[in-house]
C-alpha cells in the first residue's frame, strides 16, 4: 500500500487519475481505517488530503463559509461564527461518534462515505451546503444532496475529490437543527436522522428545507415535508402534516439497527421535535 500526501487538490486529483489500482482518499480515516481493519478494502494507494493547502481551514467568505475537506468535527465546534450561523450543521457533525472520532472525522469524509445514516449529511442538505469538487481537468460545485447515489456510492468520477464544503450566509431569521434517534445516548449509528432549516418572515415560515437520513438509500431532501410547514407558524396540525410527509417519504430497510416500521414511525416523531427547535432558533 502506498501513501502519498499531496500539497494541492490538483496534485491529489492527478494521483487519482493516474492510479491503475485501488486508490482511496484519507481525511480523518474514521471510515477508511475501519474498512482496512475489517478487510473490506485493500488499497494500493492512500492519498492523505490533510496536507493540501487550506484543507484544514474554516474560512468566512462574502458568500458564507468555506470548510476545508480536512477540518475535523472538533474544530467545527470551536468556530464561534459557524456555530452561530449554522448550529444544526455543527451539532449534526458533532454527533458523529465519540470525542476521539470528533478529533478526526470530517464533513467531506462523512459525505463521501455515503452511508445512508451519516449524521452530518441531512443537516448539510437542509442548510443548502455545496461540495466544491476538484478533478484532474475540471472543477465543479454540486449541492450536497446530489453527491451520494446509494449506500457507499457517490457521483464523483475516478479523478475527483471534494476540496471543501461551502455553506451560504444564513438569511435573517433563519434557524436550523438536527436530531437523530439512537438506542443509547452516544456511540450508535443513527436509526433515523432529521434536519430542518426554516427562514421566517413576520413570524411565519417563509421557506423551509427538510432532510431525512437513515430511511432511504441516501440522505434526502423532502420537498413535501417542507411544503407542509411553509406559511405556517408550526401549529399542531402543521406539525402533524410534517410528520406524515416525513414518514411517507421513508423507504428504509430492516436491519439490525431498526425495522422499516420503527424508522418510518420515528421519522415523523423526530421531525416534529426538530422543527420546533429550528423554529425557535429562527426567532419563532
Amino acid at each position, binding site marked *: 500500500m502506498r501513501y502519498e500526501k499531496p500539497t494541492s487538490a490538483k496534485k491529489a486529483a492527478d494521483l487519482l487519475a493516474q492510479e491503475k489500482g485501488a486508490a482511496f482518499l484519507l481525511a480523518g480515516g474514521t471510515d477508511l481505517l475501519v474498512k482496512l481493519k475489517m478487510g473490506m478494502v485493500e488499497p494500493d494507494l492512500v492519498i492523505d488530503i490533510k496536507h493540501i493547502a487550506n484543507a484544514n481551514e474554516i474560512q468566512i467568505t462574502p458568500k458564507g463559509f468555506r470548510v476545508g475537506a480536512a477540518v475535523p468535527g472538533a474544530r467545527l465546534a470551536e468556530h464561534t461564527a459557524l456555530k452561530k450561523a449554522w448550529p444544526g450543521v455543527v451539532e449534526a457533525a458533532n454527533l458523529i461518534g465519540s470525542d476521539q472520532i470528533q478529533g478526526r472525522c470530517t464533513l467531506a469524509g462523512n459525505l463521501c462515505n455515503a452511508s445512508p445514516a451519516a449524521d452530518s449529511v441531512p443537516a448539510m442538505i437542509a442548510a443548502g451546503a455545496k461540495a466544491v469538487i476538484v478533478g484532474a481537468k475540471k472543477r465543479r460545485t454540486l449541492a450536497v444532496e446530489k453527491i451520494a447515489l446509494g449506500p457507499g456510492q457517490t457521483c464523483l468520477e475516478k479523478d475527483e475529490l471534494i476540496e471543501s464544503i461551502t455553506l451560504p450566509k444564513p438569511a435573517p431569521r433563519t434557524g436550523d437543527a438536527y436530531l437523530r*434517534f439512537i*438506542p*443509547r445516548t452516544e456511540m450508535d449509528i443513527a436509526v433515523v436522522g432529521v434536519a430542518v432549516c426554516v427562514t421566517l418572515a413576520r413570524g411565519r415560515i417563509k421557506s423551509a428545507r427538510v432532510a431525512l437520513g437513515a430511511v432511504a438509500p441516501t440522505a434526502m431532501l423532502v420537498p413535501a415535508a417542507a411544503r407542509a410547514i411553509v406559511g405556517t407558524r408550526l401549529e399542531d396540525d402543521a406539525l402533524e402534516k410534517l410528520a406524515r410527509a416525513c414518514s411517507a417519504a421513508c423507504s428504509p430497510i430492516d436491519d439490525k439497527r431498526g*425495522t422499516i416500521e420503527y424508522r418510518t414511525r420515528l421519522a415523523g*416523531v423526530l421531525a416534529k421535535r426538530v422543527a420546533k427547535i429550528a423554529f425557535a432558533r429562527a426567532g419563532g
Partner: protein
Amino acid sequence: MAHDNRYVDKDYKVVGSRYTRPDGIDKVTGKARYGADASAPGGLVGRVLRSPHPHAKILKIDTAKAEKLQGVKAIITCTDLPDLTNGDQGMAHILENCMARGRALYDGHAVAAVAAVDEQIAAKALKLIDVKYKKLPHVTDVDDAMRPDAPVLHENMFTRGVEPTPTAPSNISARTQMGYGDVDAGFAEADVIVERSYKTEQTHQGYIEPHACLASVNPDGTAELWVTTQGHFSFRNVCATLLGLDMAKLKVTSSEIGGGFGGKTHVWAEPVALALSRKANRPVKLVMSREEVFRASGPTSSTSIDIKMGAKKDGTITAAVAEMRYQGGAFPGTWAMLGCMTAFACYDIRNNRSIGWDVVVNRPKVAAYRAPSAPMAAFAVESTIDVIAKEIGQSPIDVRLKNVAREGTQAPYGPTYGPIGIENTLEAVKSHPHMRAKLKKNQGRGVACGFWFNIGGQTCVDLNIGVDGTVNLNVGTVDVGGARSSMAMIAAEELGIAYDDVKVSIGDTASLGHNDTTEGSRGTFSSGMATIFAARDAIGVLKQRAASMWGIPLEDVEWQGGQAIATGDMHSNLPALTLKEIAAKAGRTGGPIAGHNEIVADGAGMGFASHICDVEVDPETGRSQVVRYTVVQDAGKAINPDYVEGQFQGAAAQGIGWALNEEYIYGDDGRLQNAGFLDYRIPVCSDMPFIDTQILEVPNPNHPYGIRGVGETSIVPPLGAVGNAIADATGVRMTHAPMSPPRVLSALDARDAG
C-alpha cells in the same frame, strides 16, 4: 495443621478500611502487562480461520497454497490436535470447540490456524486456505431447536432426565427438575394465579481485553504459556491434557486480566497457539480480534421461560412453577439446571417446582457470565412477582418481604439456609431515601432481588517473611477485582503488621499447588481463607523462634499486635519481640520463616441483593433511560469497601446493559450480525447515572472473617428491576429482554390499542 474456619466476631485493625490497591500504579501508568503485551524473540503471529457457516460438514481443508507462502511457519487443523481425551466427554467438547473436527457447528467455529512471521502474511495465508464445506440446515433459536423437525447437531444426543430415554437423537441434552411441596395443592389455595412467558436474548461478558496468549513449546515437552485468564491452573490442566504434555512441564503465567466475568474461565485460542508453536518450533502470539471474541468465545445462553405463580390475597405465594429452556451453544451445558437452582432462591415458597431444559443450537459454546443463568430466571420471577403484587393490590416490596427466605428456609435445590441477608436487604431498600424520591413525568420505579451461591474450592498460598520483616504473599487465584489489596489486608490483619509491609503476587503454575479458577465469587473468600491459615502457620513459626530466642517454653509465648509476648510471671521482664526483630535473626534460629496453606475452601456463603431502579421512558420512541439506581447487597464482611462497591456497581451496569440494549442478533442465515462494540451495545458513560451502594454485613458463619463472595450477585436483579420500573412508568409489562426501544414502543402501542 488443621485450622478452624468458623466466623469469630472481632475488631479489625486493617480489614474493612479503604486501602489503595498495589497494582494501581502500574495500571495508571500503562506499565501493567496484559495478555497481548508480551513478546518473545522469534515470535510468530497466530491467526485462526473460521467457518462462515452456522452448520456444515467440512469435506476438505487444502492448505497447500498457504504452506508455500513465504513467511508461513506452521498451519494446523484438527489433525494436529489428536484426541487424547480418553473418553472424557467434557474435554472432547472443549477440544472440538477449539478446532473443528470434520464439522462446523457455528458461524465463527475455528477450522484451521496459521503461524507466520507477521500479521500481513498470516492474514494472506488464511485467505489461501481452501475449505470445502457442505452446508447443513441450522437452528439458532432455543425453542426452534426443541421442535421435532429441528436440524439435529449431535447424532449421539439422547435427552437425559426423561423417562423413558428417547430413541431418537435431538438437541435437548437434558431435563432437570427440582423443588419441593405440592404445587397443585398450592395453586388450589391461591386467590390469584398469574402465568407469563419470557424471553431473554444472548449476551456476552463484553470484557474490553480480547483473548490473547503467547505460547512457546519446546521439543523436550516443556512449554510456557503467558495468557489472560481467570484460572491459569485450570488452563494448564486443560491445555496439557489436550496437547499430551505433562502438567508440571507446562508453566502457565497469568498476565494482568482485562476483564473476564466468567468468559476467561475456558480455553479457546490457547490450545491452538500451543499446537502452532509445537509445529513451528517457535513462540506464537495469538490475539483474538473483537469480532472473533463475539463470534467465537463463550457468550451466555438465550432463554425462553414460563412462570406460573399463585398467591393469596394476604400476599403469601402458595405455589410457583418455572419451566425454563436455555441454549448452551453447540455443545451441552448445565445452564438450565443452574437456572432452576436460582429461580426461587430468594423466597420461601412452600410448593415450588423448577424444570430446566438444556438445549444445543448452532451458536458458540456458552460460557459462564457472572452468576450464570440467574439473571434470566430472575427477570422472569421478579417480573411475575410484581404482576402478582399488582393483582392483589400490595406493594412489590411487601410481597417480597412476606415470602422472603430466612435462616432455616429450604432452598429450592435442597440445602437449608444458614444466616442469610435477603430480608435485611429488602428492609434496607424499604427504608432507603431512594424510595421516597419524587418521580417525574414518564418515570417509574422498580425493585428486584437476586441471589448467587458463591463457591469455595481448591486454594493454595505461600507466605514468606523476609529478613527485614516485610512479607511476600504468593496466591494462585487471579486478581480480577482488587483481591491483591484484600489479601494484603488480611495477611496484615492476621500478622498484626502494616498493610504496606505485605506484597502480594499471583504465582505461576510452577510455583504453587493447584488453585481453582477465579469464578463463583470465590477469589477473596477462598484465597482470603487460605491467607488467614497461612498467616496463622507463620505465626506458629514466629512464636517458636521467639521462644528459642528467649529460651522459654513455647506455651509461654503469645502473638499480639505484630509481636511475640512472653506471658506468665517468670518472664514478665522480657521485652516483646517484633516480627521484624524475629525475622532479622531467622538465619540463626532455624532458617527462612514461612507459612503455607492448601485447602478446599468450604462453606461459601450465599450472596443476596435487592436493587431499586428509576427509569424514564420516552413514550414516542420507547427509549428508556436509567435515571437513578441503588444496590443493597450483603457482603458478609467487606474487606475493602471500595472494591466491594466496585463489584456492586460493575455488576449492576452489566445487568442494565442486558436489560436495555445488549443482544446477539442472528440472521436467517445463522450468521451473527453484530460482532462488534458498535452494534453490540454495552452501556457507555453517558447512559449511566451514579450507582448508589449500601453494603450490609451478615457474617458468613463458615469463614473466620464472615466473608461472602460479592462479585456476582448484583448482575441478577437489574433485568427485573428495569422491567418493573418500565411497568411502573408506562403500565406495560415487558417480557422480552433486552427491553430495547422498538420492543417497548410496540408494547406501548399494544397498550394503547387494547
